[in-house]
């Protein structure tokens, strides 16, 4: 058990990211309010990105921008996670915009943000 805690403390970025992921996941699943769901989704995504980026960090090294022509790989951190997270951030903003647009339309139609209620109302309606 002390080992477990010690490891968690060493990997504190990952630990925080995982906790954040859990919270975001739960918010996404459990809240019936659409806006809350979307925020939860964003937390979840951010958590994964934090997790990923922490994989690339190496203590005492610099950002992978080569200065003075010194391209010694042992001086810079890992550029791969950064690139992947960049892609991820753009994906998550796209998805957020889409979900928010859906929320607007649903609100226009049903005047509520509660997904359960919306589902119930939609069931009553005829196409």
């Amino acid at each position, binding site marked *: 058990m002390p080992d477990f805690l010690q490891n968690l403390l060493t990997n504190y970025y990952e630990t925080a990211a995982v906790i954040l992921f859990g919270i975001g996941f739960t918010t996404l699943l459990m809240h019936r309010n659409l806006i809350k769901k979307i925020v939860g989704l964003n937390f979840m995504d951010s958590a994964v990105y934090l997790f990923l980026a922490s994989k690339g960090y190496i203590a005492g090294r610099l950002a992978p921008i080569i200065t003075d022509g010194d391209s010694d790989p042992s001086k810079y951190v890992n550029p791969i996670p950064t690139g992947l997270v960049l892609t991820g951030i753009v994906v998550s903003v796209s998805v957020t915009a889409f979900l928010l647009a859906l929320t*607007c339309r649903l609100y226009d139609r049903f005047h509520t943000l509660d997904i359960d209620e919306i589902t119930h109302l939609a069931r009553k309606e005829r196409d």
Partner: protein
Amino acid sequence: MTLFDGILLAFLIICAISVSVTRNLLASIIIYMSFSLIMSVLWLTLEAPDLAITEAAVGAGVTSLLFFATLKKIHAIKAEDAKSGEDESDEE
């Protein structure tokens, strides 16, 4: 583990929990904005300046703006709130 990182990470978790429990939608979006800002500082401490710029512009800027625009549309906030919200987010 530096104290600074620890505080920032703890702040992230507090933000996430408080969004989950708060009842005010506007408040949760503002919390989300501050979450994004802290995140962009964290990218800097992780030596990823590219991400810091993108997160500040996209996460704290455009995404939050879209949230505000949505809230405005669904009449969750008054016009004044919307304006002030947009002001803040554009400063980044």
